[in-house]
């Protein structure tokens, strides 16, 4: 059976590793990107089933990633955004651009799994 592909765009390497471990354990294939630019390259190349992206990232922000996916690539891949405290306006912008869900940091990896499963079911 083909594993579902998830792109994780996150600049915190420890968190990326933690989520990779957890999501791979759940049977997903994880494609990692350390910044928005790398995320766009991976998304264009691999056409994933789900995208997890942080809002604040170097080079290309999470908002730009969402905008590129929805407007340029015209993909309706589900997107979950990670936001920190004080980024409420950014979250609203992310939803306006086409994000499907958001998780405020700090978050529980178990809760993320539930949301991922819901969006991929």
């Amino acid at each position, binding site marked *: 059976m083909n594993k579902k592909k998830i792109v994780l765009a996150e600049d915190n390497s420890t968190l990326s590793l933690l989520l990779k471990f957890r999501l791979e354990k759940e049977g997903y294939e994880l494609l990692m990107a350390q910044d928005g630019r790398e995320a766009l390259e991976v998304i264009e190349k691999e056409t994933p089933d789900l995208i997890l992206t942080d809002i604040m990232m170097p080079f290309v922000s999470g908002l730009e990633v969402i905008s590129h996916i929805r407007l340029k690539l015209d993909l309706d891949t589900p997107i979950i955004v990670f936001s920190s*405290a004080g980024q409420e306006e950014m979250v609203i912008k992310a939803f306006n651009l086409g994000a499907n869900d958001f998780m405020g940091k700090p978050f*529980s*990896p178990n809760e993320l799994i539930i949301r991922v499963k819901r969006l991929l079911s």
Partner: protein
Amino acid sequence: MATYQYLIDYFNESPLLIKLAWGVSSALSVAIVILTLYLKLIRATLRKRDAESAKFRKDYEATLIEYLYSGSENGTINDLQLTIIEKLKASVPIKSKRKIIISILYNLMNEVSGEMSDSIQTLYYKTGLYDYALARLKNKNWYIIAKGIGELTRFKIEEAHDLVEPFIMHPRHEVRKETQLYMVNMFRFKGLTFLDDLKAPLSEWAQVQLLETLQKFDDQQICDIKPWLKSKNETVVLFALKLAKIYNQFEVKDTLIELLSHPIKEVRVSVIEALTSLYGIEAKEMLKANFNELSLEEQISFFGLLEKLVVPSDEPFIEKHLFHKNFEIQLLALKILKSINLDKFMGLSKSPKSKGSKRIIKFVNNI
């Protein structure tokens, strides 16, 4: 050989100034060569150290993830976790490695919640990092102490309360600020008890940080702020006034009215602002009666209060100040009049008294 001899002769026969110039040039050339080599060595060392740090970071991250996911469901530490703790413990005494460990743990603690965050805190204790932070508190340098308190705050170590609390009276404001933030981060509103006998001023920046910290918590059950409103420290009073405003402390209204006669103008102005947001209608008549004795700033604040709490019976008072010499009061008075008696306001433009205020009336009319 002949050329060499010629150069030596040339140097020996040269005037003293030329000899000196040659000497300095030679010394500088040698210095440049030595410094270039030294720079290369430093760069090579730094690159090596960076590579080692990156490798250690990568290894440590992997070990940390292994530790976090090998935990048992009942929360007890199993053998595998103990082995990992022992492995990590070995790196803690090395300062550079300790720094990396702390930064990784802190970065992750900020991003995850629940059991995982608790596991990170347990690891902080078990690897001995907690003891290093406590050792910092005993350092004679104030900046090391401040850093130690900051670290204990970030890792939410409540147990260090008794050791951190004495620094609330520290002569350096940086240490005091870190201690205050520790208290509030750990114990929320209960942590504000340091205000009871705070003698040193609480800076505006420190106040903003404390308020920001308090707003992070879900539990917004505030304690009694009356003692702080009566504090001899004016900055504590100003901070308590901010708390009264933000947390709608209607029960302190009487204390606020008493504070209208506080000797410090800044406090009196802030009291009027707090009463405005708490609908302190009781203070209105009092301030109206003493209006001429108030400072200009208080008068402006009072008009701000009137703008929010005006009733038709205030009209004569407003009318009296329609052409006040202060622009802000004039503007507020016109706005208030427009809100309570539009006909009278519209009639103002025809009044000969308002000749010099035509533009401001037009502006208020367009709002």
